[in-house]
């Protein structure tokens, strides 16, 4: 069985803050929720599970797959309300740039996720 294409959706943003300052925005549930636009109840550590609740009633469950301190977080999430949906795999990476850092997000349907969920 082949995996999904690596990241059919890929977006990035340039930030003026260095990676160590940006890291908290990914790993502190409250800060993460503030920019995701959702209430995040999730321990951002390998194997951590929790929920991401969007305004309007959409809720997703999430499971942290991988954390590389200061550099990368990846998690699976899948809708559970109003309807159950298929999991996708999100990878967020931070890399240093001359002016600060670059945050890159990839989101892809994941065959491995389907098998695991």
């Amino acid at each position, binding site marked *: 069985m*082949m995996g999904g294409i690596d990241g059919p959706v890929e977006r990035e943003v340039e930030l003026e803050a260095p990676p160590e300052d940006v890291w908290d925005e990914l790993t502190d549930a409250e800060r993460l929720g503030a920019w995701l636009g959702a209430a995040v109840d999730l321990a951002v550590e390998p194997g951590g599970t929790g929920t991401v609740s969007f305004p309007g009633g959409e809720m997703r469950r999430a499971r942290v797959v991988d954390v590389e301190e200061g550099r990368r977080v990846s998690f699976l999430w899948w809708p559970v309300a109003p309807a159950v949906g298929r999991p996708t795999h999100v990878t967020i990476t931070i890399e240093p740039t001359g002016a600060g850092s670059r945050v890159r*997000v990839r989101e892809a*349907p994941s065959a491995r996720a389907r098998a695991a969920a």
Partner: protein
Amino acid sequence: MTARGARVDAVFAALSDPTRRSVLGHLADRESASATELAAGLPVSRQAVVKHLQTLGHAGLVTPTREGREVRYSLTPAPLDDAVGWMADVGAQWDRRLERLRRQVGTRKR
């Protein structure tokens, strides 16, 4: 949404294999083709092509039609629109989130 999600997953899984992408490329050039005709233009066996056609069929990207003793396959690209739509929606969501992140980091710094 769930049905669309499942279709989109199947499309991406189907497109993840280079041979299947070649099969789609061959089918895009003609109205229809049999597995035998497709195998003639590819470095894989007819049996392998049949298996790939099943995966593409599951994703709705090809449609088999029986003509006499032969099954002919044609490209049905509509599911690609679902996949493109999904990418546009999810991409727009991340654009908004990353813009919020940019503002949030800027605010914290000051």
